[in-house]
């Protein structure tokens, strides 16, 4: 490393301190930390809403909240968890890790990076402010279906502008990630040597750029229908309420892969480390991820079979949906083949990764069942669906992220986290989340519709059990918060390598890494690449 480079490096380390450091930062690690902090805060905000929902559903009868408020809790819980937790959380991982994994000093577009984060606090202020407006928060479900959504009161424009802000943030973040991966790779870091986490985020970014504008268009049409006299979705004015559902789900289905693909990537990093064995079938993992993303554009109508469509349409969307099971299966089999004949240890990240594989697969099975159109005419809009998407999103996307936090926290902070508490957090979460969501399969099959604040007596027992699971799961996450704070403040010094089985460029940097990750690019060869 030349003196000039060293000098430049030191010069750049003079950055603002205090709050200005965070407000003006263009550093990928600072911005990554901001994203992850926002996601954690929103995890507790959205979680508190889930607690209200589970509290009201614990017993039959309405005890605590009126139905309108219940509906706005269900609506905001979904919007906060999707747009406020999983999306910013995975962008936080991308910011921290992509430059370190591809041997770059920082992201390609640092100022854009700052902006794409700082839009979000405004977006969520707008969204959460609606709870204090006349008429209350949005209560038409996160899917925002008209004409019901058009009955929203003063909250309507706030929600729509909040969604626009979140979308703009996501698009800017995606552009930055694509620009970074295309341009900032170290010499020898070819595409087929990229760590799988980088691959999944590259594909996710393209999904975001393709679909967020579609959502923006849909919600803008809602806005003009409400305030400017258009009739895009108003049947009486010659419009079509079903048009919205098509446009929304054209965004909505790729969106579910936007939420899960980064966690696929995280799990694909964790499993080889604690199996002490290279990832099985790297190339087929890349192709499977790309196939899933491609197919996700052709299955949107499986969210709305009961809306009514021609037989040919129903058959097309059923076959297309079933076909996604093939690349998804390939991924699961490859993860298991990675573990097969490895030398396994079970630190907290590995526990979360294994739980991810098992529980995400259960969510995949229920997803396959939902894709069978005739049976979907029974399953649709019941708690079976609620159970399904919480298995793929909570024990899928969120468990992947929790595992990722434990995996990279020593690298980020330079301290080891408390392994005993981490295991406690895992076992409490893994058990309670199943008590919470598994009975919801039974509720749905037995006939309980989703999004209802009160229910008939035959659903009482499972709802009670589900609520107990929910409270334990919610409280367990406070332990997670404590573990993170404890790890940031103190803990055993982490080595550069951290985990003895870890491979990849991020583990060649000190723990914590320098402010600018790689000031001179490392040389990547087959021997030093991921596998």
């Amino acid at each position, binding site marked *: 490393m030349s003196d000039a480079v060293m000098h430049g490096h030191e010069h750049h380390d003079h950055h603002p301190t205090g709050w200005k450091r965070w407000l003006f930062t263009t550093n990928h690690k600072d911005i990554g930390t901001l994203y992850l902090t926002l996601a954690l805060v929103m995890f507790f905000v959205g979680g508190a809403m889930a607690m209200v929902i589970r509290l009201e559903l614990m017993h039959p009868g309405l005890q605590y909240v009126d139905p309108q408020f219940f509906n706005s809790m269900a609506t905001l819980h979904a919007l906060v968890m999707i747009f406020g937790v999983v999306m910013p959380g995975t962008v936080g991982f991308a910011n921290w890790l992509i430059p370190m994994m591809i041997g770059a000093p920082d992201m390609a577009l640092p100022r854009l990076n700052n902006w794409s984060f700082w839009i979000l606090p405004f977006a969520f202020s707008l969204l959460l402010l609606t709870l204090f407006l006349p008429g209350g928060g949005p209560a038409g479900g996160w899917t925002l279906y008209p004409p019901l959504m058009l009955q929203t009161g003063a909250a309507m424009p706030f929600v729509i502008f909040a969604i626009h802000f979140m979308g703009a943030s996501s698009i800017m973040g995606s552009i930055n990630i694509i620009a970074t991966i295309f341009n900032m790779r170290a010499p020898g870091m070819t595409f087929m040597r990229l760590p799988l986490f980088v691959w999944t985020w590259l594909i996710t970014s393209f999904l975001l750029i393709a679909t967020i504008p579609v959502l923006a268009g849909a919600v803008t049409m809602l806005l003009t229908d409400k305030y400017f006299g258009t009739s895009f979705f108003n049947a009486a004015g010659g419009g079509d309420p079903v048009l919205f559902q098509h446009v929304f789900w054209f965004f909505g289905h790729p969106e579910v892969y936007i939420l899960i693909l980064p966690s696929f990537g995280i799990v694909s990093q964790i499993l080889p480390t604690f199996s002490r064995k290279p990832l099985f079938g790297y190339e*087929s993992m890349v192709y499977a991820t790309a196939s899933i993303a491609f197919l996700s554009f052709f299955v949107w109508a499986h969210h709305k079979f009961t809306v009514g469509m021609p037989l040919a349409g129903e058959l097309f969307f059923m076959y297309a949906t079933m076909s996604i099971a*093939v690349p998804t299966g390939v991924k699961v*089999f*490859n993860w298991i083949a990675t573990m097969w004949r490895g030398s396994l*240890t079970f630190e907290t990240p590995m526990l979360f990764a*294994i739980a991810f594989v098992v529980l995400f697969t259960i969510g995949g099975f229920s997803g396959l069942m939902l894709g069978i159109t005739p049976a979907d005419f*029974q399953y649709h809009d019941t708690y079976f669906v609620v159970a399904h998407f919480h298995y793929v999103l909570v024990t899928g996307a969120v468990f992947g992220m929790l595992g990722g936090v434990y995996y990279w926290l020593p690298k980020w902070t330079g301290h080891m986290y408390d392994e005993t508490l981490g295991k406690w957090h895992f076992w409490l979460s893994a058990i309670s989340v199943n008590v919470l969501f598994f009975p919801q399969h039974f509720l749905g099959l037995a006939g309980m*519709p989703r*999004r209802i604040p009160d229910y*008939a007596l035959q659903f009482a027992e499972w709802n009670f059990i589900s609520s107990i699971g929910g409270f334990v799961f919610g409280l367990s996450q406070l332990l997670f918060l404590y573990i993170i704070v404890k790890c940031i403040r103190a803990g055993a010094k982490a080595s550069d390598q951290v985990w003895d089985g870890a491979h990849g460029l991020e583990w060649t940097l000190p723990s914590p890494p320098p402010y600018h990750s790689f000031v001179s690019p490392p040389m990547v060869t087959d021997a030093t690449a991921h596998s």
Partner: protein
Amino acid sequence: MGHSNTRCRLLGTTAAVVFLWPQIAAADYALNMTRGVTELSREFYDLHMLIFYICCAIAAVVFGVMFWSIFNHRKSRGAVAAQFHHSTRAELIWTIIPIIILVGMAVPATKALVKMESTGDADMTIKVTGHQWKWRYDYVEPGFGFFSALAADSNEARALRSGKDPGAVDNYLLNVDHPLVVPVGKKIRFLTTANDVVHAWWVPALGWKRDAIPGYINESWARVDEPGIYRGQCAELCGKDHGFMPVVLKAVPEDEYFAWVEEMVVAQADASAGADRDWTREELMAKGEQVYTAFCAACHQPNGLGIPPAFPALAGGAIATGPVDQHLDRVINGKPGTAMAAFGGQLNDVDLAAVVTYERNAFGNSAGDVLQPAAVKAARK
């Protein structure tokens, strides 16, 4: 299928014992989809169970391999990691086998779907219209129709902190004032649509739900095999009282059905009678209270205080104490962009006259005026 039910119950009981909660252990657990009472529902149920068992078999193999690895390939047992990282043959196998399984699932699913969409040759047609928050059923050929809303005792008990025990209510939240009555053994074509927002009409025993969408008419069919009362609910979020608009379907033998139809036709004629005469204030107030309870109280509340600002108060409200023609206009035409529906198509002249008169003279309002059905008829033009 009784065998599988036993197994499911066994699982449920095991789960209950684990929790050791007296309330839980004593309870009856609903676990699975109903097999229903129609050809379609049985076919969908069998399909559901077939795919469920296939998923269980795949899960047993996949998780079995995984847990074998977790127990035997652990470092603490001295396992040394192999370094293989791909096998073309294995990857081909686990791509091709799932494709074969999926094709195997797609064949019966396609057959069932084709059958579901065959709505022709129906013996009769019922039009189902979703309203916030009740259903309207129109029997197309005999030419009568009625609203079907949550039963009064459920409606009282479901109020926030009502103090009433849901357990004491007959079929809490799954009972209505006027059930849908159909004959057994007849192919019935259901046409679903909606008046305001999207709803979904669902009776699990029929095997399907259908969205009811303004501006659309969806077709479905059912032939109920066994007499009985079958209950369901609205399945698409439709606003505040989405959880409180159940569906009750009463299937009866054909002769009983025809007797019921005759009754209904006579009752319908009685209900619209009196549109030409003058009504006394007391008659209008009594009738108006019934209509108010059925159509208005869900939003404006039984005491007329509403839930402002979404659902304004009528007690002392600007419309209910303002000019009578504007009041009538609001009830007939609704207020676009809000939950206030246009009731002109739902209520006859007598009902409209009565409910407007009631709203102007109840809850402490004292407009004092009386609106006659004839005036409503004139205002409609």
